[in-house]
């Protein structure tokens, strides 16, 4: 799968991300309030969600393409409906991948642990580009008082093929659109997701 490993190398990802930003600036200027069909409907009883009104507003989807939602900046975002009972495919898939690949260090539901930060907080600040960059390239924070090191997942298909999924899930956690409950119902798996998964994971 040569094309895949090329795709996940850091410079290329960064370049892609930059390209997205360029596009988005224009897009953001004429962003309109979310169409009713794209609005979120959260679980009002989920005390574990800690909704952040500002982020919820900022992250709201303005566009949907084959089951993938995008915010005003053109970055992937979540779509939570039916009083939190249903989430979009990518948020669901992100939940699943997170609890396989990330939770061993970052704790259940992005809550953090003694050796890795709570991503439900980190994603309040991290941009899409920074997120993808750290995911692919890793991060080192080694001093006399702490040794926090995250591996580079650039070569790991189980992570990189689902980078957007993870981003969407963690963004939903950061905004408080999803709590600490396993997502119940989900939107159907989009054709694009099926196709990408097949191409990305390979044989």
């Amino acid at each position, binding site marked *: 799968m040569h094309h895949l490993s090329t795709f996940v190398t850091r410079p290329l990802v960064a370049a892609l991300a930059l390209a997205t930003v360029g596009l988005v600036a224009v897009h953001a200027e004429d962003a309109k309030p979310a169409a009713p069909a794209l609005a979120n409907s959260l679980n009002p009883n989920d005390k574990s969600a800690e909704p952040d009104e500002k982020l919820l507003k900022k992250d709201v989807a303005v566009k949907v393409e084959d089951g993938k939602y995008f915010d005003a900046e053109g970055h992937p975002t979540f779509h939570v409906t039916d009083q939190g009972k249903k989430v979009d495919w990518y948020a669901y898939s992100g939940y699943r991948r997170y609890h396989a690949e990330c939770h061993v260090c970052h704790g259940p539901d992005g809550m953090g642990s*003694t050796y890795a930060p*709570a991503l439900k907080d980190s994603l309040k600040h991290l941009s899409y580009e920074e997120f993808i960059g750290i995911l692919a390239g890793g991060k080192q924070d080694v001093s006399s008082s702490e040794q926090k090191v995250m*591996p580079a997942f650039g070569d790991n298909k189980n992570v990189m093929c689902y980078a957007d999924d993870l981003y969407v899930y963690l963004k939903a956690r950061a905004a408080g659109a999803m709590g600490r409950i396993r997502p119940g119902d989900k939107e159907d798996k989009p054709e694009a997701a099926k196709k990408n998964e097949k191409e990305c994971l390979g044989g």
Partner: protein
Amino acid sequence: MRAVHLLALGAGVAAIAAPAFANDSVMKGIANPAEQVLQTVDYANTRYSKLDQINASNVKNLQVAWTFSTGVLRGHEGSPLVVGDMMYVHTPFPNIVYALDLNNEAKIVWKYEPKQDPSVIPVMCCDTVNRGLAYADGAIILHQADTTLVSLDAKTGKVNWSVVNGDPKKGETNTATVLPVKDKVIVGISGGEFGVNCHVTAYDLKSGKKVWRGHSQGPDADMIMDPEKTTSLGKPVGKDSSLKTWEGDQWKTGGGCTWGWFSYDPKLDLMYYGSGNPSTWNPKQRPGDNKWSMTIWARNPDTGMTKWVYQMTPHDEWDYDGINEMILTDQKVDGKERPLLTHFDRNGFGYTLDRATGELLVAEKYDPVVNWATKVDMDKGSKNYGRPLVVSKYSTEQNGEDVNSKGICPAALGTKDQQPAAYSPKTSLFYVPTNHVCMDYEPFKVSYTPGQPYVGATLSMYPAPNSHGGMGNFIAWDGVNGKIKWSNAEQFSVWSGALATAGDVVFYGTLEGYLKAVDSKTGKELYKFKTPSGIIGNVMTYQHKGKQFVGVLSGVGGWAGIGLAAGLTDPNAGLGAVGGYAALSNYTNLGGQLTVFTLPN
């Protein structure tokens, strides 16, 4: 009859003399309760001390004698050692070793800090813990995170030799302590989440030269097995006993890691340990029994030859690593004295076997909530003899990929993880620190990349439902009858190694940071003291200048550090009704410190 009696006595003396061969210095250290030369306290892993100055009636007067900061945050597992007038304290990564002079108010005599590539940190699955040093023949043996094995001169800290056991770039790391036995030192390896083909290796104690290596899976020669002579449940294992139970080459990334404890019986001249989970966590991707992962091993320490094996969890579907300690005791079974091995497995069953033959005697649940199997089939005539009878509802294999199997008890961290239990010959009871945690588990397809995690399942964990609401218990266990004698509920998993003493006191630590002392007969709490950070280390005791001390490392972390974010599936119930267990972070914080206790003068 007198002559016979004398003969018997002679045989007894011979039996005592023979162990001297095990390693004189280690045997001497074990025999002297003032010292602690092994993490496991003794070769049998009983974690029992003959010291009795601190006892059930005076332990309530315990006071802090002195403290020592390790200078390292993160999870502190294991315990210090005491040899003569010196104490040896280790730390998590970067694996510093301090030698403290007990005659001189614990002044630092020497400090050893290895240079290790920090890129090893994220390859360690669950924090950078290290379960401690061992002492033998004037040397302190350290097995670093990056798998470098170092022999240090105990007096000076000078490196005698060092050797590299594995490659962190392939996901091979170390968290475990080592076993010095005879003229060798036995070491294991971690990396089950990275598809490592794990093994146990013997190095020469004097030179660091590799003597033998036995893998957990693969061809018979790799495992050092004799198809005719190596047995499982009394029968020869036969040719290719491992290869037959894997599809194609999957054994090459099979896991079966050896990151737990080692015990040794000098009389039978056998060492015991357990192997971990098969890689990946998705059972559908690796059909077969996946032998010999999840297995109790008995090997000859000189040659590595496998005497017997017993696989507890064939074809693991839940990550129930079999690495927990093997505690060797001699007790009467049906009126007959037998050499026993008792093991509290992650899978929630407490096993007692005959350690000479590997015969299975007892397999009972040591937490009543365990539900993934109804029981272990004890019928020797059955084709399922020795196998757990899996409940379909909780079978992640039968439910298949992309299906979330709910309410499985115990969770992947097991009814007990590595935190070692203790055994008191005075009560014939085992004292077991346990987790009271259940999970939902959903396996799915993953692809393997060397040096990258290879998990393949989504997990969520939460306190056992319909119980006391806490995530742990500290229990007393009758290993011969397979019964819980008493059980103390704990708010969090008990992730600290227990210590039983001749003073009829059992000690353990809690994740909130309490050192607790309980009555060995009743479990009644006699003393508690809150140390600066959560305890995942093992309680130890020593005697200096005629006075008994109790020491424990604080420093929350390890997989238990995940508890800082405590799993909840129903946050409304969790945060509302019980509230207390919302998060460990409300109770403690990171910190590495040794606290030493004693009685007032």
